[in-house]
């Protein structure tokens, strides 16, 4: 078990020092998310449509699009120089590879989101601070769901010639429940409701996270076999 955790940690460590040197992942995700938000602001008239109504959707679309860029980059890294083969030849359980990539994708996304939230607050003039705790929960659960299935699908699409475009095509329809859930919960949290008032959404997104992590553990062997 200790060895297993060390292997997961090694993969996360490797992704982090790569990122610290290049800063490619963070900068591309952050700027892209920012652009998505700005383009949305231009496409709706904020004086007619309430910021609170459109805001949560815009936020999650930005996270989703930027996250896709992150997933693509993250697995491109493994494909360059055939590193993936090196990982597969190492005495590492395939699920450790999955968890390693899941953790680093998850943390990178959270860091990007942490930088986007204050900007979102300013642009949409919504005070997030009173609702910070429930909002944090919604973001954690939503992002985890995205990363759980995103990591599986990006390790699947890394085998394709057209992986850049196939990842969103495969990922987005499957992400619909999490996106709807996260947007609904964010909207209700921002209008001051507590999480206990929307247990159906909390349950649905949690179930989604758990089921897709479980399915990934069961199928990752087949995905990573050459």
């Amino acid at each position: 078990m200790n060895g297993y955790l060390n292997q997961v940690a090694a993969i996360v460590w490797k992704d982090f020092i790569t990122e610290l040197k290049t800063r490619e992942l963070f900068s591309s995700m952050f700027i892209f998310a920012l652009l998505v938000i700005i383009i949305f602001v231009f496409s709706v008239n904020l004086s007619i449509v309430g910021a609170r109504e459109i805001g949560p959707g815009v936020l999650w679309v930005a996270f989703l699009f930027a996250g896709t860029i992150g997933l693509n980059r993250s697995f491109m890294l493994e494909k360059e120089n055939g590193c993936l083969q090196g990982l597969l030849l190492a005495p590492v359980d395939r699920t450790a590879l999955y968890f390693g990539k899941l953790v680093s994708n998850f943390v990178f996304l959270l860091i990007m989101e942490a930088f986007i939230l204050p900007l979102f607050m300013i642009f949409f003039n919504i005070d997030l601070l009173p609702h910070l705790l429930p909002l944090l929960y919604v973001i954690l659960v939503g992002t985890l769901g995205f990363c759980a299935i995103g990591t599986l699908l990006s390790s699947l699409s890394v085998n394709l010639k057209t992986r850049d475009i196939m990842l969103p095509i495969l990922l987005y329809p499957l992400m619909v429940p999490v996106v709807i859930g996260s947007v609904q919960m964010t909207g209700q949290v921002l209008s001051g409701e507590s999480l206990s008032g929307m247990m159906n959404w909390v349950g649905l997104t949690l179930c989604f996270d758990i089921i897709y992590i479980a399915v990934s553990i069961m199928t990752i062997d087949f995905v990573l076999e050459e």
Partner: protein
Amino acid sequence: MVFCMSEQTHPVSSDPVVKVRDIRKDFGYLRAVEGISFDLNKGEFLTIFGPNGAGKTTLIKILSGLTRPTSGSATVAGFDVLGGSVRLRKEIGVISHATCLYPDLTALENLLFYGKLYGLNDLEDKANKAINEVGLQLRRHDRVRTFSRGMQQRLTIARATLHDPSVLFFDEPFTGLDLQATNVLKDHLHELHTGKRTLIMTTHDMSCGLEMCDRVAIQNKGRFAMLESIDRIDRENFEKLYTETLEL
């Protein structure tokens, strides 16, 4: 058919290290490997020649546990390759034309990363020693991205041998190397061929391939068309033998 060695160039234990029995691999309708069987004793060096598409890489992938054979069985270092077991992977090292190095990590960081995956003790010492052995001590803290192809290949050897594997696979290791790098790689191959390690190499390069091996195989259309001890091969006329074998 099972080929057995009569002459041995190195002292061996009774059990073969690599034991392959009637391995087959289909890719849908395409048969990449068809009924290959052979034994390889400890310390032996087998070179496999063959045209593109003969299934050489697939054979290496099966033996290193990356691909499942459709049928047949094989054990490497006493472990079944079918199980894809973690213990098998600890015993083998693979060097192909893909370097498996992370371009944005330094030479040392790459070795440290792989060392952690293999769960090695005294990792720092081992990694530094391995870097010295392949003559990259001055570049230890440089990103791999800045390395030439030859230097990357040397670091790859350090990466693949860091965990001291007992069986080494070389899949077209000379591809894309210049003359100097080829010579360095040959030197390393000589060093690795000490009688302790069992080596299997696939290559197109006739002279490099024949230079070091104990046994020679020619693979064509998924089969071993020939498997002989090097002593029985006329090195001068091997090219002729090779073309004749393929035409059979």
